[in-house]
């Protein structure tokens, strides 16, 4: 608790204090009414939502595999999920640039095999940003779900089978609801981390995808306008908390229903 106070609450308090420098709310007025900042904030939240959904769709089966596969496979799988996790984000981002480019490995393979006649625009647009971000954030989805899946009582699944429920029904009404806490944790983590993303979107989006962290960084480092940067950060923090509360609400009522 003291740790949280010293390294989180106090700095956030100072930040909020800075955002109302001179007792004026001008910084908030601009952050909340200027089309640029509001628009980029909404874009950022939308991108974070896309990334969370894609991560969930990809991560859930992987987590299931890790939890259910026989002996050596879970260990092997975990290594494969963790390996990129330990590589620098910048290196991975440049790696994607080589793979996804107009003359990148993927496009060249597709072109030479005659599957497509013109290169797919995979890089320097939203597609590139999503691929890069999902790749970085996937482990944050897989591990919380995996941890919950391992604790699921398989007796319940057997019981449902014994009672004659078809596979889909078992998944929908028994197994999936039991893993929901993991899904909530994973989605929350991925969503919150996505919102603050910075270098990956700047490089893989070719400059055409702007996220709010980029604008905040600009105010901090380029223009030294710290009170406005603080106001933008406070708005971002509030928006994030709001989404978190909504997510919790949504999932909790779901949990009760099951």
């Amino acid at each position, binding site marked *: 608790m003291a740790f949280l106070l010293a390294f989180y609450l106090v700095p956030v308090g100072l930040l909020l204090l800075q955002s109302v420098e001179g007792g004026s709310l001008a910084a908030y007025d601009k952050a909340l009414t200027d089309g640029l900042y509001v*628009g*980029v904030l909404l874009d950022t939240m939308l991108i974070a939502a896309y990334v969370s959904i894609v991560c969930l769709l990809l991560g859930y089966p992987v987590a299931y595999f890790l939890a259910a596969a026989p002996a050596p496979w879970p260990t092997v799988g975990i290594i494969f999920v963790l390996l990129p996790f330990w590589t620098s984000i910048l290196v991975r981002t440049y790696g994607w640039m080589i793979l996804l*480019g*107009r003359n990148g490995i993927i496009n060249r393979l597709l072109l030479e095999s005659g599957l497509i006649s013109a290169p797919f625009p995979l890089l320097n647009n939203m597609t590139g940003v999503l691929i890069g971000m999902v790749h970085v954030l996937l482990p944050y989805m897989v591990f919380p779900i995996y941890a919950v899946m391992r604790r699921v009582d398989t007796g319940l699944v057997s019981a449902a089978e014994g009672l004659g429920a078809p596979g889909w029904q078992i998944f929908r009404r028994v197994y999936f609801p039991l893993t929901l806490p993991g899904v909530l944790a994973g989605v929350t983590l991925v969503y919150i981390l996505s919102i603050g993303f910075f270098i990956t979107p700047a490089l893989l989006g070719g400059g055409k995808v*702007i996220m709010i962290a980029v*604008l905040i960084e600009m105010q901090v480092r*380029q*223009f*030294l306008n710290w009170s406005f940067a603080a106001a933008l950060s406070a708005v971002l923090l509030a928006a994030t908390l709001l989404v978190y509360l909504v997510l919790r609400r949504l999932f909790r009522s779901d949990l009760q229903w099951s």
Partner: protein
Amino acid sequence: MPKLERITVGAILAALALYSAPVAYGQAEPPKPAQIVVNDSGGAMQNAMRAAFYAEFEKRYGIKVVNTSPVDLGKLQAMVKSDNIEWAVTEIGGQDAILAEKFGLFEPLDLKVIDLSNYPKHLQNRKSVFPKGVYSTVMGYRTDVFKEGSRPKTWAEFWDVQKFPGPRTMQNAPIDNLEFALLADGVTPDKLYPIDVDRAFKKLDQIKKHVAVWWTTGAQSAQVLIDKEAVLGTAWNGRYYVLIDQGAPIAIEWNQGVMKESSFGIPKGAKDAYWGQKFLSLVAEAKAQGVYANIIGYPGLNLEAIKFTDAKLIPFLPTSPENFPKQWWTDLAWWADNGPAVTERWSRWMLQK
């Protein structure tokens, strides 16, 4: 409360005593620290700085130079504001340097220690920003796409997508690009400032959909040409030089390139400020600048340095007798005043479909 007040007064007196202490010692050389910290831009730069300046400083004064990176105006302000200064000297971009001087983040330069007499006349009377070197934002192109005789040579031709087709790359920032747009629109370099921002954005509208990549980092600007994401682009000259030196099919067009100063400053209140001045006096020397340029391809501004520079390198320096007159200087003061508003407009423009 009186107790608190007494403590405060005591603290202020103690602080004043500490503050005036160095003055009492007069001009005597302060004790040598074991090391000083110089903040540089890292990467390939730090190797060149090590070889040209740090090693020499260590040899001359017996003080170890520890280098950190990256260069960060925000961090500089945070250090000065909190009076917790790690650096004796920091590198700083030209535009940021003007802002830093305006915000009082630098110690004044001691021009009795730092000899600028071999520098261009307009740089000799610096207050607190030390002119470290010069770089140029230039046009670069793939030589396998554009042959000699049929290649763009001006910004007007860079804009001409009919005659010179192919994806472009430009920096994701308004600086340089607004000027390039105006030059493409027929404005002459001496009439660029104050920038007609509306006119520049209107001209940029024409090229926008032909720019495949708006680059963010220096490394990216050159990589984009190597990967053929673009065949024509802009970059800082040293970025192209490194790749040309390795045999990449890339060439530089110096015509209408824009020069900017890169700088050094001593953070306000730095405890090693005295040694910071000594360090800058070493950086100002012609020979050290020659060694530096030979490694990294960026020249210093001591005009004598060219004597110590490799002949094969000279065509790639913005200050070479052939390249220098083809280029012009950014008005950094205009950018320091207008940067925030214009950059905001740039972001808005970038989001328009």
